[in-house]
């Protein structure tokens, strides 16, 4: 069986996989990182979103072999070493942006990339459009949108730019 070597949450792993093994299967089944979820089989829901080399990616839509040599960040690796939550995690909690929690890991990882990639500011419309790839059946998104807007100034270290 082929091998992949990749860094996950700062730790290097070398894992045997089948050609068809998906990145999400490697994370969940080989590394026991069950925080990343699988909600669909058509690349629609975003429950599986992780960061690959700093950019959000649907880990159900990427072969494990394609992740060879990359650095992957999952929801488990987001909090600081001392356990302090990432500002996005904090804002999700503060604004009640999760109910059942199943979409949450993917939603948080997508949201962080969305904020990172919009240093000039982020409007509500941009947030809603930026969440196109993530489904939540519980919240109606209202509070997710609020949480992301609130995380933007915390992550960029300044007040939110006017819309």
């Amino acid at each position, binding site marked *: 069986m082929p091998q992949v070597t990749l860094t996950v949450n700062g730790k290097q792993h070398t894992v045997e996989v*089948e050609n*068809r093994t998906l990145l999400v299967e490697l994370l*969940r089944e080989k590394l026991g*990182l*069950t*925080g*990343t*979820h*699988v*909600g*669909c*089989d*058509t690349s*629609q*829901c975003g*429950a599986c979103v992780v960061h690959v080399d700093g950019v959000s990616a649907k880990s159900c839509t990427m072969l494990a072999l394609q992740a060879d040599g990359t650095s992957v960040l*999952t*929801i*488990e690796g*987001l*909090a600081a070493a001392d356990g302090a*939550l990432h500002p996005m*995690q904090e804002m*999700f*909690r*503060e604004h*009640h942006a*999760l*109910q*059942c*929690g*199943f*979409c*949450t*890991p993917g939603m*948080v990882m997508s949201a962080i990339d969305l904020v990172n990639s919009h240093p000039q500011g982020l409007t*509500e*419309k941009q*947030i*809603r*459009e930026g*969440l*196109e790839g*993530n*489904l*939540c*059946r*519980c*919240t*109606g*998104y*209202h*509070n*997710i*949108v609020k949480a992301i807007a609130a995380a933007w100034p915390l992550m960029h270290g300044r007040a939110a730019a006017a819309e």
Partner: protein
Amino acid sequence: MPFEGIGASVRRKEDARFLSGRGNYTDDINRPGQLHAFIRRSDRPHARINSIDTTAAAKAPGVVAVYTGADMAADNVGGLPCGWQIHNKDGSPMAEPPHPVIAVGKVRHVGDPVAVVIADTKQAAKDAAELIVIDYQDLPAAASLRDAVASGAALVHDDVPGNICYDWHIGDKAMIDAAFAGAAKVVKLDLTNNRLIPNAMEPRAAVGEFDGHSGDYTLYTTSQNPHVIRLLMGAFVLHIPENKLRVVAPDVGGGFGSKIYHYAEEAIVTWAAGKLRRPVKWTAERNESFMSDAHGRDHDSTAEMALDANGNFLALRISTLANMGGYLSTFAPCIPTYLYATLLAGVYKTPLIYCEVKAVFTNTVPVDAYRGAGRPEATFLLERLVDACAHDTGMDRVAIRRQNFIAADAFPYQTPVALQYDSGNYQATLDGCLKAADYAGFEGRRAAAAARGKLRGIGVSTYIEACGIAPSAVVGSLGARAGLYEVANIKVHPTGSVTVYTGTHSHGQGHETTLAQLVCEQLGVPIEQVDVVHGDTAKIPFGMGTYGSRSLAVGGTAMVKAMDKIIAKGKKIAAHLMEASVDDIEFKDNKFTVAGTDKVKSLTDISLAAYVPHNYPIDELEPGLDETAFYDPKNFTFPGGCHIAEVEIDRDTGIVEVVNFVAVDDVGRVINPMIVEGQVQGGVAQGIGQALLEHAVYDSSGQLLSGSMMDYTMPRADDLPNITVATETTLCTHNPLGVKGCGEVGAIGSPPAIINALVDALKAYGVRHIEMPATPQKLWSIIQGGAPRMAAE
């Protein structure tokens, strides 16, 4: 300590683990030596199974076993039971054909299990399942309600004539017909309630395990009610006594009703684990969710209202066809009867109501409760009909509602359809919502939108629902095969921390927080010292789970009663320790005091004395501070309210933007306003989904066309508006907390608000009704003067 009791928007205790990837969902569970099941499902809507050849699959790499329905039958496995029996108009019981765990002889819908492969890995099981050769003889299918009741229709079950599960009614038909004959005006509307697929984001999953030493079975499953699964699967399907069967429903990623029912896969993994002496895991792929999770709604109705010359509602007459799918799911028969027809009074004092319901088998996935269950169907029908009444009589939509409301001082109010509403104030929720939505200023906004080339409309829906399920004697008399009380066990530990064991189940509702708030309120214990445990039959005495917004009204009340017992016992211990009479002991803010003195003992002093006493009235009182209470509600609870939607339709494309949505609900006392707001927003999102986007579509042969998330439109962030939520409270009069429930109101009140707004936006086009989902294509066709221009008048 910060205020954490009733009324505080306490941030949720469960969030830290969910936000850190430490949730424990069923698919996250892996047991040592575990095998994987993959189910080969029917790709035929309706067919006889001539033969199943599993030889090649059994020999495939990694395969441990292949089982069919015949193997289960040979092992005396029973069928999946139905929990509710409805009677026909003539008093005879409904048709209740068998529901085998794995199909035997015939398949009845796409997705029906035909065989299961169990292998070392999921991939091996899936690969091998492809090798099973099934010889089908295709049969004509009854794919829709209308097809199934047509004369000469294919029979889903050979021994169920006409595909009629039951033909039920409520009300006095002769009286109602007479009222219609004498009415000044009759308003009629034909309408459907579109079929939905729940699509909780977590696909269903199950892990079965058998302990060869003890002979005990454990099932981990994505369930809203583990005790119910233990009861049904143990007693009716696998014949495992309850002392040998533990059912665990760990973190569950949303349910919305779809995870209430006892499903085939739970029985398959548990049974196979016993046969193979190894754990067996199954997790649905999303395509399996589409074709095996119970669907929702799917009604076809004719509604008529008789009015007097002044617009007063005199009588309501309804005839409904309700789709049951290919088999009866656990609660299916009660949804279009006792959770639907009994709600048809709505918020109106209509004196006479008659409703007949034919439940129909079709070659489709079973249909059961989905968020709101029966009540959204009733509300959509009624609130569309009331708008049609306004349209046909030329009355104002708000005025005709107000005029026919049950008055705020008319409670308790006995409806003509069995229910007695205990409290409510529909004027208040309407007024609050009109104000918050700036209804008065709407025409200005309509004109401004018109100037931009947009068609703007506003829609109002005033609704009621019944939840807090359920008063056991009442539902028993209506055909429920089990009572629906709830249980709480509360342990105050020696050093004063508290564990609550509740029979309700949280799959997003936030019980670990709200139920803990009840303990803060009543016992004065800080929230971080309170744990709420749910979802494990080995830990919790009993429980009926969570659905029908019952957790707080029924489960919370059981907790209050258990805490009452704890306080009563604590007072006796305190009286002994402080050498006072029990009658003089008061309990408040975590402290027992002797009235008129400064003597005081904290709850911790008492709990310590209760477990490890030096000085204890051991002859009179059992040690320990651990109480259990059962609660059977006296009535349903009746949340109600008003939803107002404002929409804009693009003339060129038919695309709808929901530009404003306001919900003002009366959910009784609010324990955690933040959570209530979130529940309503989530429900409204599902209601807007139903109104604009979602539709489970079968073709005429019975193939599910909307079988993936690429074909079935789930609401996304950019489909939805911000949702303004407010509450106007009247208290429930028959539970001590005064709570009513908030889980379903959003999905119940919102669909008619949206459609009423669209009809309003298109009133210049002569439109009187639009069927859900109101897709851009439908609206565009109306604007173009195309086909669905005028519904039958």
